[in-house]
């Protein structure tokens, strides 16, 4: 109660002297809450609350078909995951290794393409941009059928193009993309490149915020294209690159759809495609271990969270926010 009177008296007092400063701050706070609340309410109800429930799940031995037989087992699921289940660490290693391969490639290609698509004098921008984004829009079912076809060792056009260069690629002794433990990651990276439309578009949107006079000034100073790219473009779009990096990292940790559909989650060949989320899916839905599945999901969440926070920690050093005056 006293707090209220105090702030009210402040306002009254402020009316006399520097009214603007005080009321503005309070107004700003009020508006802050106003603007945040729709998202906050939805988030609390539909994400935070179910998350807490899932944390409780991790302490149960629990099957969805017979929920009444759920049994409280304390931290058994966690112990099993951390110390007994070897697949956890193997699949985690596969996932992280693949992330280090695919993420840099995808981000660099997407950035360079966005720069090209943003060139001032490019004709047919709309057509080019649509073409590069379009594969991202192909419905999942159709795109998987297409890629199985594309990488077919006998008939796929990837092997045919390689044969043009005089390398034996087609047939039984050729490049069997989905059967070879080494080639399969390359095939996955390639499939991933068809999905970089989103990243390109974010980069494109980011490039629109770079003031053109910066480039003009750089040209007058005799800076090369590459210098402009490195000294102007990169810092100016770093908030957007940061977004791509964070989401890319999280997305890589949750890599699932491609290996799941192409190899049915079997881990074939040689367990190389047993990514962490595949392991999670098998435990949760094939073996119906809801409690253990929730524990696995929490582990990947904690890892993703640590990675995200670490990235936010480094962002102070390399992400440049042009708009922030008080820094």
């Amino acid at each position: 109660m006293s707090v209220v009177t105090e702030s009210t008296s402040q306002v009254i007092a402020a009316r006399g002297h520097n009214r603007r400063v005080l009321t503005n701050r309070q107004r700003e706070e009020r508006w802050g809450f106003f603007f945040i609340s729709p998202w906050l309410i939805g988030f609390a109800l539909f994400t935070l609350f179910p998350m807490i429930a899932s944390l409780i799940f991790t302490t149960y031995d629990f099957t969805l078909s017979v929920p009444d037989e759920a049994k409280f087992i304390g931290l058994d699921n966690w112990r099993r995951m951390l110390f007994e289940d070897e697949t956890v660490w193997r699949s985690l290693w596969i996932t992280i290794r693949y992330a280090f391969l695919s993420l840099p490639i995808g981000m660099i290609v997407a950035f360079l393409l966005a720069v090209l698509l943003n060139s001032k004098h490019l004709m047919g921008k709309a057509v080019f941009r649509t073409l590069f984004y379009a594969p991202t829009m192909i419905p999942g079912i159709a795109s998987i059928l297409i890629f199985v076809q594309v990488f077919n060792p006998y008939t796929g056009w990837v092997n045919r193009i390689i044969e043009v260069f005089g390398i034996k690629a087609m047939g039984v002794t050729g490049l069997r993309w989905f059967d070879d433990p080494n080639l399969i990651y390359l095939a996955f990276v390639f499939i991933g490149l068809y999905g970089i439309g989103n990243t390109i578009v974010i980069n494109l949107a980011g490039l629109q915020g770079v003031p053109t006079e910066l480039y003009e000034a750089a040209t007058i100073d005799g800076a090369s294209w590459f210098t402009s790219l490195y000294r102007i473009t990169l810092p100016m779009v770093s908030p957007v690159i940061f977004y791509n990096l964070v989401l890319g990292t999280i997305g890589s940790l949750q890599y699932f759809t491609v290996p799941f559909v192409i190899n049915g989650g079997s881990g074939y060949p040689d367990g190389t495609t047993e990514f962490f989320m595949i392991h999670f899916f098998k435990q949760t839905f094939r073996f119906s271990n809801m409690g253990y599945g929730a524990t696995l999901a929490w582990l990947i969440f904690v890892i993703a969270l640590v990675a995200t926070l670490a990235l936010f920690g480094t962002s102070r050093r390399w992400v440049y926010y042009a708009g922030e005056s008080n820094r």
Partner: protein
Amino acid sequence: MERLLTLSFLSTSITLRSLFKFKMGKLLTYAALIILAFFMLLPFLWMVSASLKLDKDVFRFPIEWIPSKPEWSNYTTIWTRIPFMTFFGNSLKLTVIITLLQLCTSSFAAYAFAKLKFPGRDWLFLAYVGSIAIPWQVYMVPQFILMRQFDLVDSHLSLILLQAFSAFGVFLLRQFFVSIPDDILDAARIDGMSEYGIFFRIMLPLSKPALATLTIFTSVAVWNDFMGPLIYLNSQNLKTIQLGLRMFIQQYGADYALIMAAALVSLIPVIALFLLLQRFFVEGIASTGVKG
């Protein structure tokens, strides 16, 4: 005089050189883009080709890129085999509603995070940063149980509620909002504009590329969402296009030609949307005229 001559000489040589470099750069840009675009186009060419074949010929080798007898009837069959029109309408309804809601909630929250100071903001931001890292699988099951409690399973409302609040959207817009100079906002505040007015009359107009981006992403994601409708929608009259596509696999054996035809038709609205919105990716000059 001499100095002037040298200067003019220098400047001509610079323009000539830069002209040459400019032409080469342009040529290389086009070459690279055309080659890459061709690769991006290949899956579509294959889809179009497959959609005009009899199912038995889809995987025949060597690929007959242009079918000798195109089966145009595939494009009429898809509308009669399954209630494709209903599914189309359902997808459209969900996409429009969810996208609009997400634009509202995300831009509101992003504005608060980027430009307003209020107690607890940093804690909220931390929670929100964490929430981006949550795999959907973590809360998928509890969420379903919650929706069952609300008696919303097998309704469009369940999907709308679940997808209207996106941490991705907030993060995306925040990254753009932060780059808009504080000075503009302060100037508007001093002029007596309300936060509401600043948001609608300054932030949103200056963030058109970002808003266009989020619109495209959300629309495509909802339009192509498979797991959500699979889990929440059971009634035939509520189902969406993606579930419809799968019907060509389940109920009638896999008819790949029809899947491709239906998938291509389903792409038309999203491609149209993209073409419409990509014009917002024009040379924006968000900070011109203001010292950032």
